[in-house]
């Protein structure tokens, strides 16, 4: 009952791969957007904020559909990518990673932004009087002190990526071995007669993965908070 079939292993591996890359690629952008929202004032900031948060409230299908329009092989951006870089994301696992990254983006930005806002800017001023340029201050003071928020953001968006369904199936479809991640595999099993046992098995795996991610995040965040508060670790 618990032994996974090769196809199920494939779905699990694919899910982890998609989640990993979606998080890795969206992280620098999320840090930049969080810094922008936490530290600067510009006209149109609230509109920008709303756009960043859009994936949180839109039906995922809508996000997937727009991705398809934009990045599909005949979409404006998709055609450009293919012509100049030979990159095709539609109906590929990379497309699934993009969809997952976008759906998890607001969660990541929110967590990091809260953390950035909690950083004492007096410490940054102190670092500058000691001879550190703005960039060095960012990497040696701001970023380390933001670490708890970054870890929270990373794990939240990782978990969100593992569970991504609507945008993924709309944008890159449900191709075994390419875009059939765990949730899509579960969905597929529920659609075939006699797939109940497999669906249940995959669901248990999804639950275990999510619980592990949450526990790991809790542990890492506590560690990072102790460090950022300056207690001996």
């Amino acid at each position, binding site marked *: 009952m618990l032994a996974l079939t090769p196809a199920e292993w494939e779905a699990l591996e694919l899910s982890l791969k998609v989640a990993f890359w979606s998080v890795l690629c969206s992280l620098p952008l999320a840090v930049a957007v969080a810094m922008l929202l936490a530290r600067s004032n510009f006209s149109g900031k609230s509109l920008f904020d709303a756009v960043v948060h859009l994936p949180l409230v839109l039906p995922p299908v809508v996000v997937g559909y727009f991705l398809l329009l934009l990045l599909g092989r005949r979409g404006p951006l998709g055609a450009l990518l293919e012509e100049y870089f030979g990159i095709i994301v539609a109906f590929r696992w990379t497309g699934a990673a993009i969809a997952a990254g976008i759906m998890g983006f607001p969660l990541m930005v929110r967590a990091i932004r809260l953390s950035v806002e909690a950083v*004492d800017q*007096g*410490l940054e*001023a*102190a*670092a*500058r*009087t*000691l*001879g*550190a*340029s703005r960039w*060095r201050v960012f990497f*040696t*003071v701001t970023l*380390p*002190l933001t670490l708890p928020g970054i870890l929270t953001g990373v794990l939240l968006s990782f978990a969100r990526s593992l569970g991504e369904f609507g945008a993924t199936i709309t944008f890159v479809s449900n191709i075994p071995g390419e875009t059939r991640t765990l949730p899509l595999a579960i969905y597929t099993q529920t659609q075939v007669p006699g797939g109940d046992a497999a669906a249940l098995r995959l669901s248990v795996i999804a639950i275990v993965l999510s619980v592990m991610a949450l526990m790991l995040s809790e542990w890492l965040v506590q560690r990072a908070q102790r*460090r*950022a*508060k*300056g*207690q*001996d670790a």
Partner: protein
Amino acid sequence: MLKVRATKKLANFALDAEFSSDSGITALFGRSGSGKTTLVNAIAGLVRPDRGAIEVNGECLFDSARGIDVPVESRRVGYVFQEGRLFPHLTVRGNLNYGYELAHANERYVALDKVVELLGLAHLLERRPANLSGGEKQRVAIGRALLASPRVLLMDEPLASLDTLRKGEILQYIERLHDEIKVPIVYVTHAVEEIVRLAEIVVLMAAGRVITTGKASEVMGRPELRAHTGIFEGGTVIDAKVAAHDLEYDLTTLEFAGGQLRVPGVDALIGEPIRMRIRARDVALALTRPSDISVLNILHARVIEISAEQGPSASVRMDVGSVALVARITRHSVERLDLRPGREVYALIKAISLDRHSSGFA
């Protein structure tokens, strides 16, 4: 040499200040809200003046007329903040090394070992800031600023958050550091004791302006500045030298331009300069030299001016030799003794009233 001229308009405050100093320790003195911190921030580059010029040791850091505004990180000003501002994610060693590693090798003038020894930090190096006491934090903050080999060290009320015992301890460290490493210090404070103990030059500020600049012993004694200094506890500051110690009675004899003073034992070598604050209310006056009296210090003086105050008291300003001294006595006594400018009097000062808090190494 430090030359500062800065104007800055803020929503409910205007800074328009100018001073220069070539002394070792310059104190910016004034009540809270007088613009001291804003001025120091302008020197550090954390506040940009609307107009002005700032020069440290001949190096121009800011000049609005010439369009010069050296960025904070290139100014080489060490800044010790009131609340320490240690990096919480680094150990004490990491904090100390932060600026040291960023300084150019040929501009460094002090090494980690020296600073650790000077400030007594050896046992703290591997600790994190959250586990340090207030006094330890400030010592680390001073060391961190010093290790960046700054041209000038700015200290913004570094003792404000400490208790009296710790204050004395840190003051000792600052004195040592000033003696051993000749970095000019700009010291912001509103505490008279700290001025008496540390400062050579005092820049007196009020409402964003510099009221006067001068030697600590002069500025702090002037009664007409009392509204600005906030020293309702009037007095004078006297520059003296240790002349002798009387170990049997634990007394020290000081020599100053107006004569000698005997004070409770001071922990200093003979010949060492010392500064003594004499509170006006601790000085009594007599027309003839009293003989059978416990008071140890009887100084011959000449009355310069008498200013009656509200209430019962009056300030009598005198010259003892060439040194100014102020006595605060009742208006009643002024009349009874018929005191007036030019009159010769004897100033009586109890040795015990000159306690350790009123002395400081010059």
